[in-house]
């Protein structure tokens, strides 16, 4: 428990609460001070105003009917109920009325201390030698001030307590959520790759952070899954040729020396095939890594198609196929020419290798809603629709093509290259024969 307490003293939420409490305390004190000053001034102004009123009444009495009337007024004022006022009327230094002893005549507003009372009042010469003073006890103002201060202190204490409790609650909640994040991360570190950070659905900053982290974890999980898949595929796909290689060498060792040269030739061929598979795997990994994007340049697709026709036209002819290009206009994309050549080569080689002689292959360049598209179409026997998705799986080879050259990575490589270019690659549904289309993003600018 003490461990928990110490921990939440170290949380960001607690630090924020503490800062908040300090700011709150300082503002309460400032506000309190201000209230005191204003209250005191109001009391003062009121006292002075009353005293001036009294003096004016005495003056009036004196002016109209002489000293007798002035004494009368003082006595009347003193007789008012619940008064805490003090008066003095003196003539030639001798008091003639009031409840204060004689004093040196001093005019204006000032404060006296009598019997421990603070008295605030106003003095005035009514006529030469005639001095009047009226004031009131300021003690009750001090009382009110003390009460205000006390109220302030209580308010302050209660607010402070609430702030501390609130801060602690916020810290606890924050701590619980960050602990949940830490727990999820630790679970992932411990091997539970499916663990995710709980999201409350409140869309606050912690929720958004948790959401982003979860997305990152999903992406990492997908990459791990991919890696896992490839590792399995390699292990699976390599086992067969490596076993065959070993069997061949074993048989050659047992067999007559005259067959050794042939056996070695076969072994080198098999080794090359295994290495080619590795190279293709690594190439896909390199493409998917995205580093090649740094070398992108503007590529003319029409130029690319002409190059492909010049390169593969004779190859198609030799295999009894025909290769034509079909384009009405040029279109440009941002891309890596060497990789785009590899992409198209893969598709064209598939069309040449997996169709019977007499098949027509067409490379077409079209523009659909500003997006350039390259389509490789052949009028061969085609591929059943339910196999279309599988075609893009790594190391997938159709039963009929297992005896032909290749390692089942051609379309995976093509897909990786297309994705690097932000393009979509897919089988065109409903085509007579077989057609694959690469739809590039619209060229900006």
């Amino acid at each position, binding site marked *: 428990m003490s461990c928990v307490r110490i921990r939440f003293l170290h949380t960001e939420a607690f630090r924020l609460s503490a800062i908040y409490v300090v700011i709150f305390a300082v503002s309460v004190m400032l506000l309190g001070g201000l209230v005191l000053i204003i209250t005191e001034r109001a009391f003062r102004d009121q006292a002075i105003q009353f005293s001036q009123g009294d003096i004016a009444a005495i003056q009036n009495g004196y002016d109209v009917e002489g000293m007798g009337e002035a004494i009368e007024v003082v006595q009347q004022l003193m007789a008012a109920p619940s008064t805490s006022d003090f008066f003095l009327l003196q003539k030639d230094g001798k008091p003639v009325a009031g409840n204060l002893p004689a004093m040196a005549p001093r005019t204006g507003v000032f404060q006296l201390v009598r019997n421990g009372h603070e008295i605030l009042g106003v003095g005035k010469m009514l006529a030469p030698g005639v001095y009047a003073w009226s004031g009131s006890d300021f003690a009750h103002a001090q009382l009110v001030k003390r009460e205000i201060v006390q109220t302030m202190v209580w308010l302050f204490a209660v607010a402070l307590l609430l702030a501390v409790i609130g801060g602690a609650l916020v810290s606890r909640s924050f701590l619980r959520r960050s602990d949940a994040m830490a727990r999820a991360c630790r679970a992932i570190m411990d091997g539970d790759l499916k663990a995710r950070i709980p999201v409350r659905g409140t869309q606050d900053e912690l929720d958004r952070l948790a959401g982003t982290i979860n997305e990152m974890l999903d992406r990492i999980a997908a990459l791990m899954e991919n890696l896992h898949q490839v590792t399995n595929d390699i292990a699976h796909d390599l086992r067969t040729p490596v076993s065959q290689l070993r069997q061949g060498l074993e048989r050659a060792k047992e067999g007559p020396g005259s067959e050794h040269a042939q056996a070695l030739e076969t072994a080198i061929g098999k080794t090359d095939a295994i*290495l*080619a598979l590795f*190279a293709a795997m*690594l*190439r896909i990994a*390199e493409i998917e890594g995205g*580093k*090649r994007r740094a*070398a992108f340049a503007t590529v003319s697709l029409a130029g690319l198609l002409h190059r492909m026709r*010049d*390169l*593969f036209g*004779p*190859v198609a002819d*030799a*295999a009894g196929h025909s290769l034509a290009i079909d384009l009405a206009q040029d279109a440009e994309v941002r891309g*890596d*020419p*060497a*990789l785009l*050549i*590899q992409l198209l*080569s893969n598709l064209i*080689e598939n069309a*040449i*290798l997996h169709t019977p002689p007499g098949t027509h292959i067409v490379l077409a360049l079209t523009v659909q809603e500003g997006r350039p598209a390259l389509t490789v179409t052949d009028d061969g026997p085609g591929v059943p629709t339910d196999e279309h998705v599988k075609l893009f799986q790594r190391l997938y080879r159709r039963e009929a093509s297992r005896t*032909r*050259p*290749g390692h089942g990575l*051609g379309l995976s490589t093509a897909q990786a290259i297309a994705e690097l270019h932000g393009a979509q690659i897919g089988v065109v549904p409903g085509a007579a024969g077989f057609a694959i289309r690469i739809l590039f993003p619209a060229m900006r600018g």
Partner: protein
Amino acid sequence: MRLLLVEDDLETADHIAHALTGHGHAVETVHDGAEGLVRARSGDHAALIVDRMLPGLDGLGLVRALRAEGLPTPVLMLTTMSGLNDRVEGLEGGADDYLVKPFAFSELLARVHAITRRGETHETTKLRLADLEMDLIRRTVVRDGKTIDLQPQEFRLLEFLLRNAGRVVTRAMLLENVWDLHFDPRTNIVETHISRLRSKVDRGFDRDLIHTLRGSGYVLRAD
């Protein structure tokens, strides 16, 4: 030829040196980059064969240092990295050719021969072999007084063969240099194009210039 091999893997170094010696070359072998640079500075090698990954100074650093010092010795770089970027980096760093391990020995040999010949035919505007003549400026080819009509790719293919006349060129060298293809095609691109070129350059003449060497590549020669 006197060759310098810089390769840190002892087994690979031994294998390459042994095979090159078998073909009549004098091979000096060192196992790290810094020593390779010291030896290469002597300048008495016809070519360097440098592994990309070396302890201390790596192959790329070695070639860059050599070129910075103005040494023109041709360099063939070897690597286990098949990355396209690595190749570009190697060539930009000053290597003359780039070969990915593992390779067939005939591939290494052909490439070493090809790079040591660089410069001989560098400034020429005409390439000749026996009665075959190629004008690089006018883009024309004439054999025995008869003009041979070639398409641009066929012209490039013949040009590459002529520049390497008398030396073996491999399928991979042709794919890289003529068509800029850096992967192993599944169709017989090279065979097809060579066959078409042959039908234009050799057919109807009394001796063949384009010869196929089974298992290693092609050679253009007059005898």
